[in-house]
């Protein structure tokens, strides 16, 4: 069976662990528990007719002191960049991570997840920045780990791009 490593990256507190839990276990908790190091999970889905197992690396978030270790990203076939829609600064972190991954790992498929869509009335992401990323070819999904909105679709789409 085809098996692909997928990293979930982004600033701390953007909802990476919640997205993985929503996708793998279909559960959500409002309590925030920071991730230290990495947690590995897997889920099998079908792309076309072919079953594909995604090995999901939920990597500790980046902060002002600790950058994401590229050793965690080695061997990844694709990755998610997760942004908290209510914190504009997390978009800049995602942009920095993308540059580093491209430089050190290579141009592998990735997707930008604008998370916390359930709090859209509190979003602070500049529309022009998002439009600029879309024009640059970034695939963008507006997700909510809380409601599950667009989560399944985002993983399915990345799997499709990795297999293609």
């Amino acid at each position, binding site marked *: *069976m085809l*098996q*692909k*490593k997928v990293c979930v990256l982004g600033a*701390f*507190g953007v909802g990476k662990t919640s997205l993985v839990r929503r996708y793998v276990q279909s559960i959500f908790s409002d309590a*925030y*528990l*920071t991730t*230290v*190091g*990495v*947690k*590995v999970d*897997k889920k099998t889905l079908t792309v076309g007719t072919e079953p594909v*197992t995604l*090995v999901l*690396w939920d990597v*500790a978030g980046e*902060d002002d002191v600790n950058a994401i*270790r590229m*050793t*965690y990203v*080695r*061997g*990844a*076939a694709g990755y998610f960049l997760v942004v908290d829609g209510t*914190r504009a*600064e997390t978009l800049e972190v995602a942009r920095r991570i993308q540059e580093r991954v491209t430089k050190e790992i290579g141009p592998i498929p990735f997707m930008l997840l604008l998370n916390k869509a359930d709090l859209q009335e509190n979003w*602070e992401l500049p529309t022009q920045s998002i439009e600029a990323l879309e024009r640059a070819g970034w695939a963008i999904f507006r997700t909510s780990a809380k409601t599950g909105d667009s989560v399944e679709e985002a993983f399915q789409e990345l799997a499709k791009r990795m297999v293609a």
Partner: protein
Amino acid sequence: MLDLPARISEWLLLLVKSQRAVAHLLVDGEQMLVKAGGDLEHYGLTDLRPRQGACEQLPFLEGLLPLPESPFLLRSMGMPSGRVADVHFFDEDDATWVVLLDVTSEHDDAQKIQQKAYDMTLLSQREARLIAKLEAAHQALTLAHHELAASREALQLTHNRLQDELRDAERYVRAILPAPIAEPFAVDWLFVPSTELGGDSFGYHWIDPEHFALYLLDVCGHGVGAALLSVAAINTLRSSALLHTDFRQPDEVLAALNLAYQMEQHNDLYFTIWYGVYHRPTGRLRYASAGHPPPILVSGPSRARGDAYPLQAKGPPVGMLPIARYRCEERVLYSPARLFLFSDGVYEIHRPDGSMLEESAFEEVLTRAVPGGKSELEELLHFARAAHGSEVLEDDFSIVKMTI
């Protein structure tokens, strides 16, 4: 290697093994699991099958082999059992050794510290966002305040201009009022407009050497519109500008006025008027009323209490009906007597408790003896203000006194 005796090195190894739950795996160049040993159960790595694919059995190896460098370390990896391990990789010949050392305790400590730090950071970020929002709201409020102040200033200027215009209009209304006369009989008046410009006006003049016309009108409502109509109507009377009308006949005058000032052509305004003609040689007063309060004739000299006679006459207000008939009444005036002609603002006075002043109280004041040297009309105004409880009356205060 450590420069220690073998016994101590072995002791150290046993110590690490017991404290770190050492487990190991060997994966060959084909990424097949060769062997596994140590405390694998501690990490939840059970049912491992040698000579089977390593990555299928140990998903965290996916994509890592062959190693990019050796030795290679993955820190703090959550394992299936819930324990956390540092995962060390070593290349050896054509195979890779994977050694797991338990770091759960260090992980938990680090997680507690990091959690606090992140909670604090999130709080301070939220605080910064709130402060930014507050500052933006404050700026918007300040801007709105400035705009409001500018609007208020413009409004004040407009208000002042309107007030000036109202004062000009009031001056004009006052300017067309006739001067008091003393001979051959006395006619005096008092006119105190309300705060808004009112619709009261009056006049008197000799029609011919024997006939003296006397009139007072009150346009419904207040404001410039009412004042304009009152001035127009008074000018019509003063200049005898009604065609085919004998101004010595009060009923004819009111009927002609009614035709000339229909409310449809005058901004829906109508007015009440009392019009009288005094024939001096005979002392006969002929009069008609268009819905106006009856004047009061007080017999006797002003220094003594007199008797009051309201001069009633019936007729609809001017402008309300296209065809209206007015009846002429008549009374002979015997000297000494005073005739008081007024608008409803003189006696329709609200007391501070909301009740209305009785007409009988007003009549009582009119018939009261006036002490020498005092102005009877000023006394009336004083009485009205005292009853109202304020120097500012609700309506125009207009009264004309004819003394014979």
